[in-house]
């Protein structure tokens, strides 16, 4: 328990360092790392996201229509409340953990084990400035962008499928969708996905920079710790965030008493 608390405290300190040192992003080597991170996490993952997003949207709608014999209003509500607010940010976060979280934790752990982090210190370069700040910012921005892609594609795909399978036009579905939507949902999605991105990146960077040992065996252990803890934290944040903003958690199973 004390170990978990210490790791949490260290991650919070690392997050604090990132906030304090955002100005290093203006330095050319750090800006280069940021660009690479955004390209790797945000751009080159897009194709996979498009396929998964479209699949998830159509799957949920097909299932709901088949099982619940839903009409257009219910289909849109499901798309909006379940997919847009909860599933899309979670899917994007899980994809970021799978793809970038493991890569970051492994890369940093290898750099630590092989003495490259020590080399940075000898060059008077703070490893947190060069390795952590651009990765946290890059992954946070990319997670927000990927969440937006998933939302657009999953909701779009879901609406298209609904229009084909139930007796409703795309226009009708979209007007019902925009009746439900509000700026709060957009802000909620952006803030939540940024928070997910920061949490994933900080945990993965922390475990990468603190592998459990100095041998090569410590590298996969660091990656496993990073993936496990960041997945748990994302799930926890999702529940807490939903409860704080909408007074509901676990897709409405738990509601705040007003």
């Amino acid at each position: 328990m004390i170990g978990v608390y210490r790791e949490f405290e260290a991650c919070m300190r690392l997050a604090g360092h990132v906030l304090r040192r955002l100005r290093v992003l203006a330095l050319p080597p750090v800006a280069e790392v940021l660009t690479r991170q955004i390209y790797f996490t945000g751009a080159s993952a897009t194709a996979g996201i498009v396929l998964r997003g479209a699949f998830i949207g159509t799957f949920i709608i097909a299932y709901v229509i088949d099982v619940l014999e839903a009409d257009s209003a219910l289909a849109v509500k499901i798309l909006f409340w379940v997919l847009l607010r909860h599933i899309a940010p979670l899917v994007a976060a899980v994809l970021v953990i799978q793809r970038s979280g493991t890569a970051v934790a492994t890369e940093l752990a290898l750099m630590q084990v092989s003495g490259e982090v020590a080399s940075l210190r000898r060059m008077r370069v703070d490893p947190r400035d060069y390795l952590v700040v651009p990765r946290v910012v890059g992954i946070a921005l990319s997670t927000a962008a990927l969440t937006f892609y998933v939302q657009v594609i999953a909701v779009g795909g879901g609406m298209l499928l609904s229009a084909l399978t139930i007796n409703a036009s795309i226009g009708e579905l979209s007007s019902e969708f925009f009746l439900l939507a509000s700026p709060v949902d957009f802000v909620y999605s952006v803030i939540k996905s940024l928070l997910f991105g920061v949490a994933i990146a900080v945990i993965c960077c922390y475990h990468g920079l603190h592998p459990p040992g100095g041998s090569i065996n410590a590298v996969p252990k660091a990656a496993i710790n990073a993936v496990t803890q960041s997945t748990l934290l994302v799930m926890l944040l999702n529940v807490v965030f939903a409860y704080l903003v909408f007074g509901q958690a676990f897709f409405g199973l738990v509601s705040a008493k007003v």
Partner: protein
Amino acid sequence: MSRGDPAAQSDTALRRAVDVKGVALGYEPPADDRGDVGIWIPAGGSHCVGGLSATQKAKLLAAVIEHRPERRAVGPQGGAMRSEKRAKLVLLGAELDKLGPAERAALRARVGFLPAHGGLLSNLNAWENIVLPLGFHYPKRLKDAAAQVHGLLTELRADPQALLPKLPERMSPYEKKLTGYVRILMEKPELLLVEDLRGGLDRAERAQVTEFPAAYLASCPGGTFVQLDGTPEV
């Protein structure tokens, strides 16, 4: 260089009394440490410190490069730690113990260190490795960096076009050393410590690295080049 015998200790005591202004690197182990060596190097020129064991080298480098002067706990009564004795370190005419953290950091910026393997980052090519510290500490100097790097590599008889795009995994030990060396020269340190300059090189490459001190002194007139050559620890 002095060893931990009585004669050497009296020699060290004499040096303590001498003004440290003309000293580029002075390292004096704690008085009770008989196994360690003291080092006293005047400013300017090229010097070689030989015969250091891996442990001694690590202690010296930790003190100079990482600001971790060795702390030795002294506990004569049942292991109770009552006081600490520290190694004395003089860098570029200043005693490190008498400086605050900001002054130490400023002093450290004037010292360069080339590790035996070059100290390169494996995911950056030679060019990116060379300009990394420059981009961090002196971003304004980056615009002239390409010409300077080409000039230095040519002076050291390397082909910039062939070397600069290479990743460390494709470099020979000599190329790694050379890349690390050029990276340090770009920062123009007043004191340059080079670890095991000839280690891991063949005969032709050893002949080539003999030009390193001259290249440094031409690039940084008045600087001090210190070669730390170790012996394997038995």
